[in-house]
């Protein structure tokens, strides 16, 4: 009998989404436990004492696995089903490289640019985000998804862009990924969010808008505080 799989997550998180979509693509049944990150449960703190963040994957009795992209790799290796990462070692290395690039060079400046109050500081992050997203855009030439014809690891790594692009643009009034500037990324975002398995674990857009609108002030406070320390 298969060991139970539990995923500790939170609503609207692209990081949690990565783990969910990976489990679904492998056909692994799981229980999703939603956290309120302003009031973290004992379960979360016990299983992720180091980072105290979601997602956290619990597979049977094994110690927890943390960090979303590591969870995706684990799911790929531990369960049968279609491969999520490329089989070829070189292609796998490329996928890991670009995933790291997305996390450090796209997601971070993108996030800062969306919420900063200071116009000058914001411009610096906007410039960095756009330069890096142009590099990402070039990875989509001739491909439907970053992973090829079907979604894979690198699409999950970039899912934050797809998931919250339109949503966060609406909530903040800032559009960073314009149709003219980044036609391939926009098309990819549409294709990704329409993909059957992805769609099945995505909350409705209105719910995401409401969620981020509700958190707006709290996020702005945290991001602007962080920016002062930079």
């Amino acid at each position, binding site marked *: 009998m298969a060991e139970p799989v539990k995923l500790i997550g939170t609503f609207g998180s692209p990081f949690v989404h990565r783990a969910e979509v990976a489990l679904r693509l492998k056909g692994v049944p799981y229980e999703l436990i939603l956290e309120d990150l302003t009031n973290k449960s004992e379960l979360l703190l016990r299983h992720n004492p180091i980072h105290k963040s979601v997602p956290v994957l619990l597979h049977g009795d094994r*110690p927890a*696995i943390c960090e979303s992209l590591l969870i995706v790799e684990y799911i790929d290796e531990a369960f049968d089903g279609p491969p999520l990462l490329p089989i070829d070692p070189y292609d796998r290395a490329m996928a*890991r490289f670009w995933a790291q690039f997305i996390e450090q060079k796209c997601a971070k400046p993108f996030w800062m640019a969306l919420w900063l109050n200071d116009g000058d500081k914001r411009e610096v992050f906007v410039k960095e985000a756009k330069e890096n997203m142009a590099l990402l855009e070039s990875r989509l030439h001739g491909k439907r998804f970053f992973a090829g014809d079907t979604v894979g690891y690198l699409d999950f790594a970039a899912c934050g862009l797809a998931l919250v692009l339109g949503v966060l643009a609406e909530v903040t009034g800032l559009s960073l990924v314009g149709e003219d500037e980044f036609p391939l990324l926009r098309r990819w975002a549409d294709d990704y969010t329409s993909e059957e398995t992805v769609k099945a674990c995505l909350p409705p857009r209105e719910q995401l808008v409401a969620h981020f609108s509700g958190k707006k002030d709290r996020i702005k406070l945290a991001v602007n505080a962080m920016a002062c320390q930079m």
Partner: protein
Amino acid sequence: MAAGDDLKLIGAWPSPFVTRVKLAPSFKGLSFENVEEDISNKSELLLSSNPVHKKVPVLLHHGKPICESVVIVQYIDAWADPGTGPSLLSSDPHERAVARFWAAYIDDKLVASWMQSFRGKTEEEKSEGTKQMFAAVETLEGALRECSKGEGYFGGESVGLVDVSLGSLLSWLKATEMMSGAKIFDPVKTPLLAAWVERFGELDGAKTALPDVDRVVEFAKMRQAQAAAAAAASEN
């Protein structure tokens, strides 16, 4: 040593990330050509091989570039013939995930805080970096206990990804100890790690790849002097 592997490493001897990549083929008995880069005057080869970050290390395998040290180490491990030496990653998916987690922790928490202790703009920033660095080391003591399962390395009986990730920093960490007078791997507070440092340092692969500590101290002092001069100049 396997011939015709066509492995070329573009690196710079002071970089612990370059050392990390040197350790992997060293432990797997693979030969490679070392191309020493002048970071202040980056070569066309480096810039064309790593146009995104323009940084070392870059591994060229049959001319194809791979960048980012942990990505490179995993690539070497995945690609190399099993006959060349034990795998740096377990075949068990859970153990692999745990190893990758600690490798990431080393870079995100230990290296980041250690760099802050060196390069922090204020004394306050530097001392915060030092504090976080010691906290990270204590956490890694627990990690070693958990991962080693009573054996000598994070990888168990033999060296693994986490040993390579942490081991690559040893010359710099020892240099820091010499320059600051404070012990980073205290045998009383972190006995397992202190013993691991000795054990790892004795390995042939480590001796080949790790830069000489005195040379690192000299380099660090030179860089500190340059930074101080630049700071003084910008204040005028």
